[in-house]
């Protein structure tokens, strides 16, 4: 596998061991089935128990909650390998770990942690994350989903969420809502809503041309009664869900590298074996430039994510640094996937090859968890001190 700058030499043995174990799992359990699953438009649920046994869900959360207690570089390498399989598979793990388990860990009560985290780590309970609404994507502070506290301390939830990965698969939804009629984003709190609760429905969004091996759903809450202990007690304001997104985006920055690596490897292999004009097309300068550009961008992205992981482990990383890594790496991967597809010529449009699947997936990765454009504005604000949103 591509490691042009010998990055392995600055990974610890445990970091390499984690990467290699997940790599082997993806090679043996994901790659043989993912092309079909993608064409069929289904998430391959059959891999969930294996992923749980391996320990990828919430792998950077503490061992006392049944998680692996890995460092953030190890966590990133897991995301890289999963997305080398498919962005849908990595999205599943990102949502489960960073967007469902993390808020329960960070904002939940001890009872909530004990109730959910170890079973979620094992893949027995699947979670989803409800923040985005039909009319509030890049601007989550405008959300209209509302929870009202009743006199007995219970809650009634009303609203709708959209583009929710794992929405129809999940046993629990971590839902973000404003509270008690307060329209400011300071009133946003998190709630754990079990599937099957009366008034809560999840419907798959059909017709996707990207992330086809992933369930994407619309969640509707109509007078959903929730017990008092369904609220995440430590959550408060928009900052809470944004903290979750920072965790997930960090993983995405690594995941995009995995997708790009898969495309590069496929293109490289193809260029060495596809003969045209009596020679391997890899011998033509135009394909060598293509491969050199892809290689260079992948290596740069690898170094960005690795350093970001070291900063995260040191506790000194900033959300703006995560924005830079997500923005760069997702954009880099869309370019690499497109160039790989082009190098593959007509074969590149077949599901038998991975590049066009990755190319289509990466358009979602480019767009979700903060679009490329929004991250541009976050970086613009970080360096100028001027807020383009207001």
């Amino acid at each position: 596998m591509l490691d042009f700058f010998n990055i392995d030499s600055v990974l610890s043995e445990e970091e390499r061991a984690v990467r290699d174990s997940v790599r082997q799992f993806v090679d043996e359990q994901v790659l043989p089935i993912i092309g079909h699953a993608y064409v069929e438009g289904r998430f391959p649920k059959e891999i969930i128990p294996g992923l749980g046994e391996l320990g990828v869900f919430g792998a950077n959360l503490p061992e006392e909650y049944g998680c692996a207690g890995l460092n953030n570089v190890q966590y990133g390498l897991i995301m890289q390998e999963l997305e080398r399989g498919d962005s849908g598979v990595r999205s599943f793990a990102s949502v489960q770990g960073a967007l469902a388990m993390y808020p329960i860990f960070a904002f939940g009560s001890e009872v909530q942690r004990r109730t959910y985290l170890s079973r979620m780590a094992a893949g027995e309970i699947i979670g989803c994350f409800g923040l985005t609404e039909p009319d509030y994507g890049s601007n989550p502070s405008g959300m209209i989903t509302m929870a009202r506290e009743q006199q007995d301390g219970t809650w009634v939830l009303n609203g709708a969420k959209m583009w929710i990965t794992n929405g129809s698969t999940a046993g629990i939804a971590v839902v973000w809502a404003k509270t008690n009629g307060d329209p400011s984003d300071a009133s946003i709190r998190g709630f754990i809503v079990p599937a099957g609760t009366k008034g809560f429905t999840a419907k798959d969004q059909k017709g996707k041309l990207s992330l086809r091996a992933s369930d994407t759903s619309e969640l509707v809450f109509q007078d959903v009664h929730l017990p008092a202990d369904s609220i995440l007690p430590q959550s408060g304001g928009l900052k809470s869900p944004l903290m979750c997104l920072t965790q997930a985006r960090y993983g995405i920055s690594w995941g995009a590298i995995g997708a790009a690596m898969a495309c590069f490897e496929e293109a490289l292999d193809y260029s060495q074996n596809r003969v045209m004009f009596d020679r391997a097309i890899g011998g033509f300068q135009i394909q060598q430039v293509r491969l050199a550009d892809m290689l260079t961008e992948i290596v740069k992205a690898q170094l960005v994510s690795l350093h970001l992981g070291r900063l995260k482990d040191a506790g000194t990383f900033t959300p703006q640094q995560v924005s830079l890594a997500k923005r760069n790496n997702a954009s880099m991967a869309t370019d690499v996937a497109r160039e790989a597809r082009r190098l593959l010529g007509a074969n590149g449009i077949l599901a038998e090859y991975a590049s066009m699947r990755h190319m289509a997936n990466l358009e979602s990765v480019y767009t979700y968890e903060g679009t490329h454009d929004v991250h541009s504005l976050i970086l613009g604000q970080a360096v100028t001190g001027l807020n383009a949103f207001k």
Partner: protein
Amino acid sequence: MKIAVCIKRTPDSESRFRIAASGAAIDDTGLKFDIDDFAGYAVEAALQINEKAGGGESVVIAIGPDSVQESLRKAMSMGVDRAVHLKADAVPADGIAIAKALAAELQSGGFDLVLFGKHSFDSSSAVVGTATAELLGVPCVTAASELSVTGGTGVARRELEGAAELVSFPLPAVVTIDEGVARPRYPSLKGIMAAKKKPLETKPAQLGAARVTVQKAQLPPERPAGRIIGEGVAAVPELVRLLQTEAKVL
């Protein structure tokens, strides 16, 4: 049950190999090493026997330079309880010299079962397991594709050309493992972190004198390029003719 698994660390079989400057070995540069495939099956067999019995101890042993510790830790990350590293600058080509070091380590260990891979990918000599059994004075079963233990008796299935046989043997014993026993499990991420805390003992390997040495290593000749005879049904008669007259396989 107390089970020892002797593993070898070998290069990935799908690597592109080069001959080292000495002309008598493979150049290790850039090669990725791991537990040999058959030894991986042996590790899995040991874990399953003890899991089925609901207890026991498994110990993994390897000879070589410090780099073999990575493979020992991998076996522990799969679930093996502890490891012994018999330190040597290099693994000799003489299987009997290796067996002497292993027997010296194993003889006082009180093991019920000692498992090996049926042979290693890089030397394919299939000597070490059988020679170790001889040195320990215990029964030896080679190339077991299934293995079970009841009381003090083991039963193994061996795949033969066009048939199979079941053999039984008293413990303690040495068994070399073929694929088919059980596919080696993935090291879980928790297992990888736990392996760091498991005991790994290092001691010098008491290798026997190496009487067999490699004089020269050669890569297989390059395969000639393939030939496309034609396409579709029309090409079949010519293909059959060439398979009969040229390749002489029909």
